């Protein structure tokens, strides 16, 4: 991707964002003072060595009435979707913090969401044992995928958006044809809750992890298991994803460590620590729009950013008042969304103040 393109857009969009921050109609009960206008600084070159991020709060969004389980930016960057135990998917504007739409239909709480790569469709995984594919523009369900015999815990689109992979609490991983809404393949993948599934770039591989403590890599077309990564000790892994180039796997585990694996050699290349993660399924993600960071929530109510290479904590975002379980990074701009649980129930948008 052209690095200058993202830079250009981020600076223009930021103008719009700071204008609307002052009087945000959607969040009347916000306690935080509006952030001071960003100081005029020269825009740093993205990716320059050992930069530190300077994220600060832009918006606080309220609306969910029960624990939020996932937040995801749309691939074109215009929307933020969040899902929650309150059965509703909410679509927000990350630039203004406004609520755009509610997607109602599930009969039980939601655990995960994923966007199709054209940002038209959204799939949501629910405890009602179904996955719904939503047309985000109209807010209608276009497909309901039935087949899991227990709660659906995680879901992911492939790059061409022809397939969905989902993981359920019965231990199965299912692959779905999105246009027909039919299950193509069921893999009896794990013996416990499947907590994360993710396609690699060309959708030839699926990585899954479960509360049985194993990370497994699967061949999408044959459904064969290609590899199992065991953590080597009693760390139960609860979130995995491929790196943007699909060469590595990022996993979070209940020993409060995030690991980056070379899955071909089964070697752990990097370990990130300093946050707390012992109880909840907390996601981590890559931030590659500016400096290269690893972003994750924590059970001490903060969001941590590590330098991808040096593994140092480079920034800690404070503000949430409960466990931060979900984080997401914007596809083009230096922007992070984080969401918190029961007693907080806010989604917060953080942006790098220099951009």
């Amino acid at each position, binding site marked *: 991707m052209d690095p200058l393109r993202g830079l250009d857009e981020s600076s223009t969009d930021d103008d719009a964002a700071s204008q609307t921050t002052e009087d945000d109609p959607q969040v009347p009960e916000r306690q935080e003072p509006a952030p001071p206008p960003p100081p005029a600084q020269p825009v740093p070159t993205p990716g320059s060595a050992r930069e530190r991020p300077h994220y600060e709060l832009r918006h606080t969004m309220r609306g969910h009435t029960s624990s939020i389980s996932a937040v995801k930016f749309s691939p074109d960057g215009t929307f933020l979707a969040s899902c929650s135990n309150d059965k509703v998917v909410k679509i927000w504007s990350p630039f203004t913090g406004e609520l755009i739409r509610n997607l109602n239909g599930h009969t039980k709480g939601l655990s995960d969401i994923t966007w*199709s*790569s*054209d940002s*038209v*469709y959204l799939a949501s995984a629910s405890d009602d044992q179904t996955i719904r*594919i939503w047309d985000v523009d109209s807010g209608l*369900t*276009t*497909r*309901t995928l039935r087949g899991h015999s227990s709660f659906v815990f995680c879901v992911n689109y*492939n*790059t*061409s*958006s*022809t*397939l969905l992979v989902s993981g359920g609490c019965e231990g199965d991983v299912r692959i779905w*044809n*999105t*246009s*027909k*809404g039919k299950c*193509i393949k069921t893999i009896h993948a794990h013996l416990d809750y499947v907590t994360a599934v993710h396609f*690699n*770039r*060309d959708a*030839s*591989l699926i990585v899954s992890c479960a509360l049985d403590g*194993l990370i*497994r*890599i699967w*061949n*999408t077309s*044959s459904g*064969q*298991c*290609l*590899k*199992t*990564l*065991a953590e080597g000790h009693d760390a139960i892994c609860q979130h995995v994803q491929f*790196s*943007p*180039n*699909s*060469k*590595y796997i990022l996993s979070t585990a209940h020993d409060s460590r995030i690991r*980056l694996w070379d*899955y*071909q050699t*089964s070697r752990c*290349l*990097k*370990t990130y620590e300093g946050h707390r993660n012992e109880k909840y399924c907390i996601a981590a993600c*890559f931030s*590659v729009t500016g400096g*290269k960071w690893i972003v994750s929530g924590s059970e001490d109510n903060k969001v941590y950013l590590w330098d*991808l*290479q*040096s*593994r140092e904590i480079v920034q800690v975002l404070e503000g949430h008042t409960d466990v931060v379980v979900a984080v997401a990074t914007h596809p083009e701009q230096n922007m992070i969304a984080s969401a918190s649980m029961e007693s907080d129930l806010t989604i917060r948008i953080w942006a790098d103040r220099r951009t």
Partner: protein
Amino acid sequence: MNGVLSDPFTISYPTAVQTSLNSGASFAKFDPSGNYVAGGRPDGSAVVWDLDTRAPIRWLEGHVKAVTSVECVAASSCFGFWSRNSRYVLTSSKDWNVIIWDLASDTDPVRRRATVRFDAPVVCASFHPRNSQIVLVLLSPGDAYLVDLRKQCRSRVELCEIQEESDDEGQGRARSAMTVVRFDPTGRYIFAGTSVGSVLVFNTRTKTMVARHKISGAGIIRGLDFAKGGRRLVTNSSDRTLRQFNLPVYTASTVEGEYIEQELEPTYRFNDPINKNAWHAMAYSPDGEWLAGGAADNASHKIYIWDLANEGQFATALDGGPEPLLHVHWHPKKPSIVSTTNVGNILVWHCPTPERWGAFAGGFEEVDENVEYEEREDEFDIEDESEIALRKQKAEDEEIDVECLIEDPSSKLAVHAQRIADDDEDIVWAAEEPDDDLPGWRMKVMIDDDLDAV
């Protein structure tokens, strides 16, 4: 990407049918990315299949139903050809039309970018490898046309064979009809097979003939295919033999009407010594090391594979069941083949890998035989834990790149070839007024409405 994990041994041709797509198609071709298959049907329509989901995703219905008999199907119903980034599909039919479809359109039915009408049935048509606005068409009596749809050089030029002028009785001799025309993979040259057993080479830009190769004993040329670089050519002819040739280098002729007259000697000949089968089609593997030939047998579906790296040795014959074969095409990247049967099934061949149960247990490796275990020198040494931790810390300091894609060696070669090509005036000519077939476009996923939605 998958190959690194899943390929325990390096066999590089497919061995078994993975799936059968019931599509009614008599021709099937992979797109250049290998994610889709386009099938041309005898009723004049074409269908695009997605191989991820193994489901039809687009129907291209524009040709009048015209084809009646099975022989016609084999000869020419509807060739599906892809532009280089798979955005455009070209279909041609006996209804005298060539239609170019734009798969990037999000409408159903798919929008046409162009319909080109001729005054005779179209035998085959194909895109220029570098610009989908240049189309090569062969009409039924045996005339080839190069159609340029670009605004600045819109033209329709017939490719004419230059006849020997010296002998007088040549005047009365009928012009040999072309039976097959193809661009070479670079797009610089057009190769045409004729009914008198010769291969003509035309320069694409100047549209003049640069060479004529007589192939002795070939009879009618039925088909042509190129290895990826375009240096090797295989011909299929009416004498039931496939011949592989190493092509000479063609220089741009300076004098009008000058051309190379050369008889080519095949490096290998492939035929079926037992049944003396003719061939319907042949295809090179992407690395050019294997050649697949589809046998024209009325009672079986046989694909012969020859090992070109090993002096053209016969490797295996794949048996696809009782439905006779019509066409074969090799996947652009993988050891996979699509072959079509005369009842309309597309067989997708793959190279199955056995399930490795050891993959289910982390850290275990399957061995075929007992291995005497030799312990490492330091394996049971007692070490200070802090030292181990320190070493681990050090190892983690290594820089890693999470963004850059794994370089595909073949794509590197392609970039290299592209760079060379940039200096070439033929290539520059073809790149003028580029089509909007850009890499990275994505086909929109259409949600079927006819099914019970919710």
